[in-house]
């Protein structure tokens, strides 16, 4: 229906869809693509499963490097410069790290890092254009990539602008501010385009500000709707979980990571970040809705339809921002539309995505020590003795979590959910004893880790069917599965590894110059299947040698 309306609008000239070679057919966004990677997760489901089989178990040993492309985030000859800052200057003393999953449309890869966007030929790694945004500030920790609609690209900057570029040229169309950098907001997500909406979120937790999600008009950038992660005033839904308006306005619930979308239910799903102050709950008694929650919003209005809060009253910085993965299948003998999330707090949740009903809650780590069990709604029951104290409390997982933003994968052929986890420990110290603490209000000292594991989880039980323990610990990596019976992920030593998704057997590996830093992706181009992954400042493309 949405598509019809857009097509009519396009015919009437209301939406000037460009007709050049790079144009994305918006219909592609609603079905799993094989000859494109048109949105952050490849499709709206967040499964990161490809139906492509050209690269498969029988030939994966022949997977070889087609090209490598290294980026520099310093403006050079031909760089298109935009932005509000003073001088175009290198934004970092260290090389850029590509955390984006590049879009691939009509043979061109589009990706971004903080303040930078590029178009690169997927056949050769040749750079077509570089766009540089002069920043006015914000923490430059990462950027998940871009959204595309027709010939229009969208990405967010650390100083909280939504910038739209022409895909064919890299020229800026417009930019709109979505949050105030002076309040310590900084933006990391990849915009997700759904119908006539560009959905954007933001981050920032240094100065206790409330989070939100917004939809913008792809044509003009105008705001269409805004959903706040917290109630705005007493009496609003959820306000009963905060002591007062003061604490609500300290907020949190940042929308760091792109969400997923069910076109039939018309619901957009996203996990929200932690409440503020981050490591002290003293001024915010209660569950603090809708922080650390999976929320389902009507994509046309931004209205909340249901929520599930995995970390009520979080005090350990455990954002629930990890990808909510959508799949259908049998549960206790009945077909269900489900949503699964491996959460930073160390729990794996399966929900009925039509209404948020909890189906499974299971711990991801044996070391997890902050909860006293699970309540009748499937929510972990926090142990208040594991909230930060002046003398310190030993908690597993550490604030970085059992897992983090790198995308997991669901393989509908094995019916397994794959996620990399780390069994980490930290001591949490309370540093601000004021009744109204500010900022983090606590300090963390990392103690160590029992290691990093790739887990293959049966969604019906939440238990791992197999797991692979990496010999060295490392930050959990992104995952891709394919119908070629392959699972691609990385280790802490800079390897890209292909596993058998049925049993965890290693089938192939390649050593890269850095640890993989995004979720691997795959697509078909000129009849050849490409596997593309980022590691540090470089993209690597692999194909089967011919």
């Amino acid at each position, binding site marked *: 229906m949405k598509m019809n309306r857009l097509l009519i609008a396009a015919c009437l000239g209301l939406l000037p869809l460009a007709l050049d070679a790079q144009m994305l057919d918006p219909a592609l966004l609603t079905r799993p693509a094989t000859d494109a990677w048109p949105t952050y997760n490849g499709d709206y489901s967040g499964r990161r499963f490809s139906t492509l089989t050209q690269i498969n178990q029988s030939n994966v040993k022949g997977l070889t490097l087609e090209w490598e492309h290294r980026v520099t985030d310093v403006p050079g000859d031909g760089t298109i410069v935009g932005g509000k800052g003073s001088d175009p200057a290198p934004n970092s003393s260290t090389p850029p790290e590509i955390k984006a999953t590049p879009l691939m449309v009509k043979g061109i890869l589009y990706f971004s890092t903080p303040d930078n966007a590029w178009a690169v030929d997927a056949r050769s790694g040749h750079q077509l254009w570089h766009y540089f945004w002069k920043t006015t500030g914000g923490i430059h920790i990462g950027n998940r990539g871009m959204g595309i609609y027709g010939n229009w690209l969208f990405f967010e900057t650390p100083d909280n602008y939504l910038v739209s570029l022409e895909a064919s040229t890299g020229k800026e169309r417009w930019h709109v501010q979505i949050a105030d950098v002076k309040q310590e907001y900084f933006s990391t997500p990849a915009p997700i385009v759904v119908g006539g909406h560009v959905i954007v979120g933001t981050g920032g937790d240094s100065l206790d500000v409330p989070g939100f999600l917004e939809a913008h008009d792809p044509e003009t950038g105008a705001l269409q709707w805004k959903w706040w992660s917290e109630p705005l005033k007493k009496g609003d839904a959820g306000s009963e979980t905060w002591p007062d308006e003061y604490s609500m306005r300290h907020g949190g619930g940042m929308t760091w990571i792109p969400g997923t979308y069910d076109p039939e239910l018309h619901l957009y799903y996203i996990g929200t970040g932690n409440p503020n102050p981050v490591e002290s709950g003293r001024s915010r008694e209660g569950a603090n809705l809708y922080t650390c929650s999976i929320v389902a919003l009507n994509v046309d209005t931004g209205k909340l339809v249901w929520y599930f809060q995995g970390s009520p009253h979080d005090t350990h910085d455990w954002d629930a921002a990890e990808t909510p993965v959508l799949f259908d299948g049998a549960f206790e003998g009945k077909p269900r539309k489900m949503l699964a999330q491996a959460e930073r707090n160390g729990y794996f949740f399966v929900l009925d995505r039509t209404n948020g009903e909890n189906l499974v809650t299971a711990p991801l780590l044996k070391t997890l020590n902050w909860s006293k069990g699970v309540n009748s709604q499937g929510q972990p029951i926090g142990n208040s003795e594991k909230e930060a104290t002046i003398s310190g409390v030993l908690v597993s997982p550490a604030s970085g979590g059992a897992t983090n933003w790198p995308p997991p994968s669901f393989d509908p052929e094995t019916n397994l959910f794959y996620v990399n986890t780390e069994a980490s420990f930290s001591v949490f110290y309370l540093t601000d004893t004021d009744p109204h603490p500010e900022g983090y209000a606590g*300090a963390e000292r990392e*103690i160590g880790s029992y290691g990093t594991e790739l887990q293959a989880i049966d969604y019906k039980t939440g238990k791992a069917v197999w797991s692979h323990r990496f010999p060295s610990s490392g930050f959990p990596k992104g995952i891709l599965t394919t119908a070629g019976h392959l699972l691609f992920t990385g280790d802490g030593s800079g390897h890209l590894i292909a596993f058998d998704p049925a049993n965890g057997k290693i089938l192939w590996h390649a050593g890269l110059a850095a640890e993989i830093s995004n979720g691997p992706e795959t697509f078909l181009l000129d009849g050849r299947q490409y596997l593309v992954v980022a590691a540090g400042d470089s993209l690597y493309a692999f194909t089967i040698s011919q």
Partner: protein
Amino acid sequence: MSHRRRTIGVAMALLAGATLPLIAQTPPGDPRPIERGQKTFVTTCSFCHGTRANGGQGGPDLLRSVLVLDDNHGDKIGPVILNGRPGAGMPKFSLAPSQISDIADFLHNSIHAAAERGGYQILNIVTGNAKAGQAYFDGAGKCATCHSVAGDLKGIGSKHDPAALQGMILMPRGDHRGQSARTGSTALTVTVTLASGRTFSGALEAIDDFSVALRDSKGEYHSFTRNGDVPAVEVNDPLKVHSDMLTRYTDADIHNLLAYLVTLK
């Protein structure tokens, strides 16, 4: 986001001028204006805004005020102080320009202190019971199996501050990640047994699913390709007991042990 590397990210951002968060544009420099500003603030403003400027009896939290965040040395704050906000119930105050500038410095410094968590000070963490700590050391904790307060731990309480000492109790090598300590008695060691039966042992240099490297007692480096279980690789962690304890300690055990060890001057 809030993942573990954010602190590093912030530190890096601070090194690079272009990405400096705006709040850091008034860095804490000369402490005197800040101290003067704090005094003036406490006597003049704290009744409504709280002694820490984070809100009080009817006055808003100034640490999150957009007007304060936009202010430069009092240029935005000054007019509000001098004119008041009659509609919002704020009276006017006749302060000198230097007093306004001092208050601005105090507010900007307070915002900086709240936002930059790298600078947070750990408070006095020695709250445990030293006697209970000693009993744990000699008894249930089995610390005395390897350690001696007259030997390796002699004077440990005067060598480290309490937070560092608490961290060392929990993991003497520091973070497992990165195998930081490759030498000394706490280094990870490895034994590699080839198909031929020949073995190599030494300090573990690097390991993953595809190779393993070690440095032997003569300082020579050896590396081996791994293919599944061949060659056989056995990693030994001399601090495994400490790792294993992480799931057994109560927080009281940790605090009592610390209270005991700080007495070993």
